[in-house]
């Protein structure tokens, strides 16, 4: 395949990188007052990229036409599905960030540029079919993310979050690299197809260690138990728009990456990784649920909630079937909507001075002082708990359906029983907002972008979302088929 065809396949990444560089120059000369404009340009760019990428998903692209740069990347329907979600999540961050940082007096023009670079990295992550391309994408995303976590320079917590994220992220990258080097050593290739071919039949001890280390490194990135410890600290310390970003886009990218690695590169050795994934899934569900119970900071609570959600997603991966992959993609869409809704609602909570309100006791009685925010946040909470008729139920439903269809009934039964523990702390938030006397801390008005995103995501996770199930299911099936066609 010639270079032009490869370039046209990665057109969104090319566009984002080039315009990111241009915007960086603009930022340097026009200064921080251009930050809001650059953010909106970034949103427009992401929309253009989504428009460029979408046809491949609708057409269910797979096979040789989608391979770029001699097998480094594969821009198939699966990659595009993940990319569209990532673009949506990044665009959301760009929309909500200006109001937040302007209030803190810390809006700088690099912010949207960093988000765009992170998005390029994630685009590479989800389409990588070579360990090196994978690593480059991952690092491009991570380096931008470390800076973003520490973006509020004067805030000790933000700096701490950035440092923690950096140190642990570097450790995870090291583990991942070590695993990749072992894999390369025992298979003689970094290419997913080559690894797959080399690993058929009996697996050597070295290759098994390679697999385990790769999975451990990825588990760090998706914050699955037992590699989840950084998540609550980073999510709490990072500026809220950045937390919203971390909880959505990079999570989608890392999970899509993990899916491709597990199902494609190590696809013939499913028995070797399934038990690891099952353990990580159940441990994440249980630890995520138990850890959240004592939290009084809503961002920490949402961090544990994201660990909990990763557990449910991993149940889909543990099945190792195409249906499981499709279910994970559906879950990811709903998860992103719930995360966006939850964090935007948190962003809208501020006291009379405009300081962000993050304590759960401080939102007591919110249903009486801010009924619409409370209603949306309650919908998000019930949805995260997976209570029908809210749409969060559907995500859990398809994942458990995949598990049951794959014959993994004990896994499904334990997982769903543990989800009841999670329901407890989601209920607590609703209880504080609806049953308690108003603390009357939350004041002030919110940006139109916040309202728009909150209402859109609340409508999506409302029962109206079920009307989208057919369409979403078809797209996810196409994407999963592309993943398995390669495999």
């Amino acid at each position, binding site marked *: 395949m010639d270079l032009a065809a490869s370039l046209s396949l990665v057109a969104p990444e090319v566009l984002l990188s080039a315009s990111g560089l241009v915007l960086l120059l603009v930022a340097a000369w026009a200064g921080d007052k251009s930050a809001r404009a650059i953010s909106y340009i970034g949103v427009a760019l992401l929309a253009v990229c989504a428009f460029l990428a979408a046809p491949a998903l609708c057409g269910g692209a797979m096979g040789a036409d989608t391979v770029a740069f001699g097998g480094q990347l594969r821009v198939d329907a699966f990659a595009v599905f993940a990319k569209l979600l990532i673009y949506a999540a990044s665009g959301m961050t760009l929309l909500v960030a200006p109001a937040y940082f302007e209030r803190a007096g810390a809006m700088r023009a690099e912010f949207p540029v960093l988000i765009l670079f992170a998005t390029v990295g994630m685009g590479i992550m989800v389409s990588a079919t070579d360990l090196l391309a994978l690593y480059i994408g991952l690092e491009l995303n991570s380096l931008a993310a470390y800076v973003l976590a520490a973006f509020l320079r004067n805030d000790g917590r933000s700096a701490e979050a950035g440092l923690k994220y950096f140190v642990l992220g570097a450790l995870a990258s090291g583990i991942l690299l070590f695993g990749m080097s072992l894999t390369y050593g025992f298979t003689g290739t970094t290419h997913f197809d080559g690894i797959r071919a080399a690993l058929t039949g009996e697996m050597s001890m070295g290759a098994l260690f390679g697999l385990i280390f790769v999975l451990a490194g990825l588990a760090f990135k998706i914050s699955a138990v037992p590699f989840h410890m950084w998540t609550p600290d980073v999510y709490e310390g990072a500026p809220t728009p950045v937390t919203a970003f971390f909880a959505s886009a990079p999570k989608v990218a890392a999970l899509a990456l993990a899916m491709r690695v597990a199902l494609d590169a190590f696809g013939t050795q499913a028995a070797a990784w399934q038990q690891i994934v099952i353990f990580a899934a159940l441990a994440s569900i249980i630890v995520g649920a138990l850890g959240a119970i004592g939290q009084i900071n809503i961002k920490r609570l949402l961090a544990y909630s994201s660990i909990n959600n990763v557990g449910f997603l991993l149940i889909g991966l543990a099945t190792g079937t195409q249906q499981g992959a499709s279910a994970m993609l559906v879950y990811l869409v709903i998860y992103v909507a719930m995360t966006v809704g939850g964090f935007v609602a948190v962003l809208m909570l501020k006291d009379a001075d405009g300081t962000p309100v993050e304590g759960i006791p401080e939102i007591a009685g919110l249903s009486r002082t801010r009924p619409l925010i409370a209603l949306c946040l309650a919908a998000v909470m019930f949805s995260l708990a997976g*209570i029908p008729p809210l749409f969060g*139920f559907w995500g859990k*439903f398809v994942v458990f*359906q995949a598990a*049951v269809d794959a014959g993994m009934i004990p896994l499904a039964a334990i997982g769903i029983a543990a989800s*009841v523990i999670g*329901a407890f702390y989601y209920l607590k938030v609703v209880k504080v907002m609806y049953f308690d006397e108003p603390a009357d801390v939350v004041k002030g008005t919110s940006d139109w972008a916040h309202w728009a995103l909150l209402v859109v995501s609340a409508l999506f996770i409302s029962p109206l979302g079920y009307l989208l*199930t*057919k369409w979403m299911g078809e797209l996810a099936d196409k994407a999963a088929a592309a993943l398995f066609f390669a495999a």
Partner: protein
Amino acid sequence: MAGFPILSVMLLVPLVAGLLCLFVEAKAARTLALVATLVDFVLGVLLWANFDIGGAQWQFVEKVPLFAGFQWALGIDGIALMLIMLSVFLMPICILASASIQKRVGEYMAAFLLMETLMIGVFAAQDLYLFYIFFEAGLIPMYLIIGIWGGDNRIYASYKFFLYTLLGSVLMLIAMLWMVHEAGTTDIPTLMAYDFPVAAQTWLFLAFFASFAVKMPMWPVHTWLPDAHVQAPTAGSVILAGVLLKMGGYGFIRFSLPMFPEASAQFVWLIWGLSMAAVVITSLIALVQHDMKKLIAYSSVAHMAIVTVGLFAFNTQGLEGAMVVMLSHGLVSAALFLCVGVIYDRLHTREIDRYGGLSINMPKYALFFMLFTMASVGLPGTSGFVGEFLSLAGIYKASSVVAAVSATGIILGAAYMLYLYRRVAFGDQKNADAAAMPDLSLREWLMLGPIAAAVLWMGVYPESFLAPMRADIAALDARLSRAAPAGDAHLKMGEPKPAAGHADHAGHTEEAAAEGEAH
């Protein structure tokens, strides 16, 4: 009526009204909620009037493939029709009973109207997953109703209600997923005729049992009920006792029995054992309560045990009896909670000792309370008698021991209900404030009058209620017949008398005949 999606409209009316209630002020919300529930009641009457008794088993069927993996499928048989009627009948009364709610009226009405949509949805759903969605979704409005408008200990009660019932239900979802994977359809009527492997039925039955037993509630997983009932506002208790508990019984009759007949027979000892325990233990607990609502809550558990006994008698009388007990208990316990609500609104206490001699200053109230007490006891002429008699007759065929133990529930029921009535309505007017309470207002008449009429109607002419269900229950009985346990109380044939010619054996013959009669 052909082609008019009456069930969807019945779901939509309260839903839309509920959403509107969120945006209007208190007075308008009350009116809107009352109008919407009355419209739904009228639609329900139309539904009953147009229900073709003896016609197709499933009527008013609507099927729209709206979703991935399941569809918007509604339809009712006689059993569902009766339970929907119960729901739409009680809802306007609940709205009337909510006059004492003063805070956040719009949200309150919205929660109740949403609840109505979900209740009708549960009984009308013909798709397994759609049923689950309606069944589970009911937790959210009830959680809010208990938590926001409940009594002092409402937070604990709301958590307990939510988590208890959620934990019961989640395993049912896994079982449903497996069933659909096995049978390849989500259509409830098809699944009701599908024969699952007997080994799998055991597990499926247990998963469904976990859900329905909690919802029902059966002893010993009933403990959420007294808390929820006591803490909920009056109308919340009415809906809980009147309709939500019936979802458990409906689940048994719609899912557990027809879908897993062999497993149902296999676990019959479990159901009977728990039911017998419930009848005796919760009746005794009810006897010592000081809180009126708690007393009635425990009596609900005892009555629902009569329902499970009837359901698992595996014969027509038992099933019919269970259905009538469910309908009757829906009316009677709702009315009793309303009676408590009437005096609670006046004196703001549920302590039995704070009342006394109410028949002197509130004679009309005392009359209604007497009627519902008698109906709860199961006096002939009231709805309670019909159901309990049929249930016990049914179970007697299956097991005389269970029948004997369950029948003690009737005696104990009389004991605790009459004791309650004596302490509240008779005796001296020992509390001045209770003695000064005014009698029923017009609104309260409108609440209690219709229920009293329905209770008497069901007691005197139960055929109106049994006729729509008869064919469905016969079909269920036919399906269950292959697994029904033998039973110990059947008539036994005597030995035939030997021919008269054998004079030398005459003495033996007489003995044999005597033996035959003895049987």
